[in-house]
Structure formats: structure tokens, C-alpha cells
């Protein structure tokens, strides 16, 4: 069967020529090899340096308080909430790939879901930093949860900020469980292949006694489907709840009904940009072009283009509804964004998020990883600017001109933000080194030989 021409399967999910053995060898060798590429040390080192910068920024914050950031009345949300929304949005692509594409039977996802889920987890970890650090007294963060306290009070359940706590913590928990359950068969593979006693012990503990029996697989399949079912609504709900932080308030530019779908689309937009920004360097360093193929990049770029168009539509609608709604304050807000002190940010965001991604219409752009990488970075910058403009420009110039004030980010704002990028890189490259970045057993199901057997059985 293998030497038949590919007429029945015009699109293969991975490059031809792989066998069960070579798939396992190639993915497992990234972890089990003694030679770690220089790129890994460079990226991990950069992450570590920036992580130390983050720890410094947080240390200074703990000593001096949130005044070290540019937070001044009326802009009390500034960078912290911008970064929170940006990071949590990035996480969404991982859940979309792992849960929704699984339920939709999009099998090509099998070679990118593992690291996309890891990306989700680490992005949520970075996102979680900001609301907590922004509290001013981060050591009292546990007050956010309803626990039987001696104060006789509970969080205000009418506040979207409390919904956020539940949305994000549920998201983090389900994502972690989904990721870990999916890892178990591969952890067992690593346990069986490593020669290092310590590694065998560690992977053995984490694999939780996985032996790959039929019963194990049956339980595994059920658990994955259930977790995917749990995670699917989260793709939509988490960023919807995040958008409620804004829409429930009456601030001009925030108080609109289209913000939830607009935020969800933006989240997936930036998430797929991050998937591309990670996948493109990784596959060329580790020679994984056969597993993360050009088709994966092409599909991700198409998702980016589609969600980018939704986001563009939202920008147009925002302007239109301000005009059509006839609300003076909304109109003034749009005018301020376009021509006021944040005009540079606003127009850069239009350039990054609407204009630049139109290049993705062209197959020639989508087939060049370098172009895709650049456009992914442009979109990530654009999506950050979008949250910055929404938060800062709306707060800086609201109803009372007497209280208007311009937000100016301090070096600690930047240090904290760049520091979380360091935290992300640090965690991500640790993951690349210690765990299989591509799901071994799921990629094996993509092989032609796996399909033949399935057909023979049925």
C-alpha cells in the first residue's frame, strides 16, 4: 500500500516517509539527546535574564508599591491590565487547537497541539501575574476567593473582576489537566526509552503507571473527550468574561455589546500569531519540518487571517456605532483615539492588525515561513497595542475633561511586561527540553499505516 501514488489522500498531515519508529525517535530525541542545540541555550538564557529582570521589578514593586508604575488618576489600569488581557488572549489558541479542533476531527492539529497547550499554560501563568501584582497588596490575593474568613464578607459576585478570578482559574485548571492527561502516554514512552535512572524515575512517576493496555487507551479516550468538552466552552467564555471587565463599566469605548465576540476573535488572532512565532523557529532548529509541515503554517495563517478580519470588522463597527449611536461621549472617545494623544498607538494598531495581515491572502506569503514569522510578530504587537488603546485612551479622557491626564509608562512598567515575556520563554524552553514538544502517539495516528489498519478493522 505504501508505494501507491497519493491519489486517495491528496493532503497528508505530515511529510511522507515516516514510520512509527522514526516519529518516536525524532520527537523523543529532542528530550533524550545529550547534545542540546546552541539555539536552546540562547533562548533559555534570554528567558532567564528577562525572568531575573521580572523578579527585580516585582521586588521593587513589593517594596515601593504600584506607584513605581505609571498609574496615576484617572488611568489606574495602565500596563498591568493591558498585559493581562494580552497574555490571556494568547493562551486561547492552545485551547482552540487542542479542544475544538479535536472535537471537529481536524487531525492535522495532532502535531501542534502539545506545544500550543504548553503555550496556553505559560501564557495564563504570565497573565495571572498582572491582576495579582496590580492589587497593590498582592499578599492578600487570596481575598479574591470566597473562603470561610473571619471578616464575615465574601467577594462581590456582581463584579466582573470576581468573574475573572473564576474564569481564569477554571481555565488554568482545565488546561493543565488536559495537557497532563495528553502527556501521559508520551511520558511513558520517555520512561521506557531513557537510560538515565533519575529521568526514568521522574518520567515514571509522571506517567502514573501507563502501560498502554487497551483498557488504558479506552479510559484515556473517554477522559480526553470529556476534557475537550469542558475546555471548548472555555475558549469562548474566558475572554468573554475578560471583556466584561470593560463592558460592564460605563466608560466610553468600553460599554458596548460587541466587545465579547470581538475579544474572543482577537484572542484567537493573537494566539495563532504566537503559535506561528514559536513553531517556525522550533521546527527549523530541531528539523521538524516533516511533522510541523508547511500545511500547518498555512492553516494557522488562514485562521489568523479570518480572525483578523473579524477584528477589523469590530474596529469598523466601533467607529460606526459611536457615530450611529449619537452618544457625544462615545463620539468624542473615537475622535480622541484617532487624533488625540494616543493617535500614534491607534494608527499603528490599525496598521499591524488590519493592513499588514492582508498579505496573508497570498499563497506565496503563506508558504514563506520567514514572512509568516514576521507577520505573526506584527500581529502580536498589534494586539498588544489594541488592548493598550482600549484601556488607556478610554480612561485617560473620559467624561470629565478636568480629570483628563496622559498615561506615561515608566521603566518599571516595561520591566514588568518584558519580564513576563522572560518568564514565558523560560518556562517554554524548559518544556522543550524536558517534555516531548509534539505529541508522539497522536502523530503516529496520522501515519498512513495507522489508517490502513483502521480501515482493515472496520
Amino acid at each position, binding site marked *: 500500500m505504501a508505494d501507491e501514488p497519493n491519489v486517495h489522500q491528496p493532503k497528508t498531515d505530515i511529510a511522507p516517509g515516516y514510520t512509527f519508529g522514526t516519529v518516536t525517535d525524532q520527537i523523543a530525541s529532542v528530550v533524550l539527546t545529550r547534545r542540546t542545540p546552541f539555539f536552546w541555550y540562547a533562548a533559555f538564557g534570554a528567558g532567564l535574564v528577562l525572568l531575573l529582570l521580572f523578579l527585580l521589578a516585582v521586588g521593587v514593586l513589593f517594596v515601593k508599591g504600584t506607584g513605581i508604575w505609571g498609574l496615576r488618576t484617572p488611568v489606574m489600569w495602565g500596563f498591568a491590565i493591558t498585559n493581562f488581557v494580552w497574555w490571556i488572549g494568547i493562551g486561547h489558541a492552545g485551547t482552540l487547537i487542542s479542544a475544538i479542533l479535536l472535537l471537529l476531527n481536524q487531525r492535522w492539529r495532532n502535531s501542534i497541539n502539545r506545544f500550543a497547550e504548553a503555550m496556553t499554560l505559560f501564557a495564563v501563568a504570565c497573565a495571572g501575574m498582572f491582576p495579582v501584582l496590580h492589587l497593590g497588596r498582592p499578599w492578600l490575593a487570596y481575598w479574591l476567593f470566597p*473562603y*470561610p*474568613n*473571619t*471578616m*464575615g*464578607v465574601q467577594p462581590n459576585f456582581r463584579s466582573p473582576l470576581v468573574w475573572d478570578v473564576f474564569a481564569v482559574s477554571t481555565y488554568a485548571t482545565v488546561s493543565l489537566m488536559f495537557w497532563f492527561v495528553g502527556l501521559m502516554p508520551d511520558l511513558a514512552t520517555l*520512561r*521506557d526509552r531513557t537510560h538515565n535512572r533519575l529521568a*526514568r*524515575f521522574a518520567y*515514571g512517576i509522571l506517567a*502514573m*503507571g501507563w502501560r498502554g493496555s487497551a483498557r488504558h487507551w479506552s479510559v484515556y479516550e473517554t477522559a480526553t473527550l470529556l476534557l475537550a468538552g469542558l475546555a471548548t466552552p472555555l475558549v469562548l467564555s474566558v475572554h468573554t468574561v475578560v471583556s466584561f471587565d470593560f463592558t460592564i463599566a460605563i466608560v466610553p469605548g468600553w460599554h458596548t455589546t460587541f466587545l465579547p465576540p470581538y475579544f474572543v476573535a482577537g484572542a484567537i488572532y493573537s494566539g495563532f500569531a504566537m503559535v506561528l512565532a514559536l513553531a517556525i523557529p522550533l521546527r527549523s532548529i530541531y528539523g521538524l519540518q516533516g511533522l510541523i509541515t508547511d500545511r500547518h503554517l498555512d492553516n494557522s495563517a488562514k485562521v489568523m487571517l479570518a480572525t483578523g478580519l473579524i477584528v477589523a470588522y469590530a474596529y469598523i463597527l466601533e467607529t460606526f456605532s459611536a457615530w450611529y449611536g449619537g452618544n457625544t461621549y462615545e463620539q468624542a472617545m473615537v475622535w480622541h483615539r484617532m487624533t488625540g494623544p494616543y493617535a500614534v498607538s491607534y494608527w499603528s494598531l490599525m496598521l499591524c492588525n488590519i493592513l499588514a495581515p492582508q498579505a496573508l491572502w497570498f499563497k506565496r506569503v503563506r508558504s514563506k515561513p520567514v514572512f509568516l514569522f514576521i507577520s505573526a510578530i506584527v500581529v502580536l504587537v498589534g494586539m498588544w497595542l489594541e488592548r493598550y488603546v482600549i484601556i488607556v485612551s478610554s480612561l485617560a479622557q473620559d467624561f470629565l475633561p478636568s480629570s483628563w491626564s496622559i498615561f506615561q509608562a515608566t521603566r518599571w512598567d516595561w520591566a514588568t511586561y518584558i519580564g513576563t515575556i522572560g518568564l514565558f520563554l523560560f518556562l517554554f524552553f524548559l518544556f522543550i527540553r524536558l517534555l516531548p514538544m509534539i505529541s508522539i502517539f497522536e502523530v503516529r495516528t496520522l501515519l498512513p499505516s495507522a489508517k490502513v489498519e483502521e480501515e482493515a478493522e472496520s
Partner: protein
Amino acid sequence: MSQIFHRSTNTFARITIFGAVFVLAFVTWAFTELDRSTYNTRATEAREQPVPFSHAHHVGGIGLDCRYCHTTVETSSFANIPPTKTCMNCHSQIWLTSPTLEPVRASFRENKSLDWIRVNDLPDFVYFNHSIHINKGVGCETCHGRVDKMPLTWQENSLQMEWCLNCHRHPEKFVRPREFITTMGYQPAGGQEEIGQRLVHEYNIQDARLLTSCSTCHR
């Protein structure tokens, strides 16, 4: 390949995974209990004082009114710790040679205050006013307990916020007529619920929404 783990690891893993639920539940329970324990709040712990002043003797035995010493309780946020002169009103006449009272006499001679140890100490971020409570019918006993039975004074209640809110949420369960404000061992003449409702109305006690507003106590 040899086994990495002994067979017993399976049992161990099951116990730790299922046990974690109980351990977490226990830790939560222990935390909440410790938080409310008298060890943490120091409630019911009699404090040593420079002079072993007995409320049991002065209030319970002699029958002094609270306001004889705590003079500003009806008009000020602070109930007032009496000056040594108040002690000397009587103790310049009786127990003149008692060695126990020597610090009091020394304080009077040298015109230096006695350093009483504070027993009921609210955190500084709480705005508390004695006079409003007294004037709205919250008896001394309601918060301070049976002072007439304390040989050395102790803090009767936890002073935790949930304890404050008990009354701020349902003042009708605790208020009494103003004429019994300093009475120790007060018994309502009838149903507390009914009397309480009437007094809440009569004394214009604000509704629970205002009484439990953050800025009522945290200003």
C-alpha cells in the same frame, strides 16, 4: 527491563491522590478553626496589669456604674481610662497602706500616669466610636461581656470583623433600652426580637445596608 517501581507504589499513588482531598479539607478546616481560636484572638485571656485592678470587685461587689470611671463613653469615641485621681477619690481614704496599691499612690505623688495594658484593641484601620453605640442602645455587656465577673480584665469577644457584622447585620437581636445600658446580666422584659425591632425604629438605627457599608467602619 526491570521494574522501576515496587508494586506498593500503586497503592501509595492511590492513597496520595485520594488522600489529598481529605488533607486539603483538613488543612482548610484547621486554618479556619485556628483563625477563630482564642489562641489567635487572645479572647478570654486575662491580662497582667501594673495594678491587679478587679472589675469583679468594683463593679460586681461595690456596684460602681461603668461611667464613674469611663466618663466619656457617652460623648466620645474613646470610653476613657480614668486618671489616677479617680482612683484616689476613694483610695485616699481606704486601703491606705495596702502594698498592692503602692503603684497607684506613687503615680499620684509623682504625677505620672499608670501604664495600663490595653485589653480591647481594635486595629488602627477600624474607625470605632463608643458614643454612637451607647446612644443607640448597645449595652457595655454586649461587647465587653460580664465585666462584673472579671477579677482581671479580659477581652470577651474575638473582635474579628465577622463578630462586628453579626450585630451590624441584625442590630435588633442585640439592642436594649438606653436606661439599661450599663446593666450587667440584662434580661429583656419580653421577646428580644420584638423589643429590638421597636428600639431600632425608636433610636433611628440605620438599616443593615448602611451599617455594613465599608466606609462606616473603614474611613
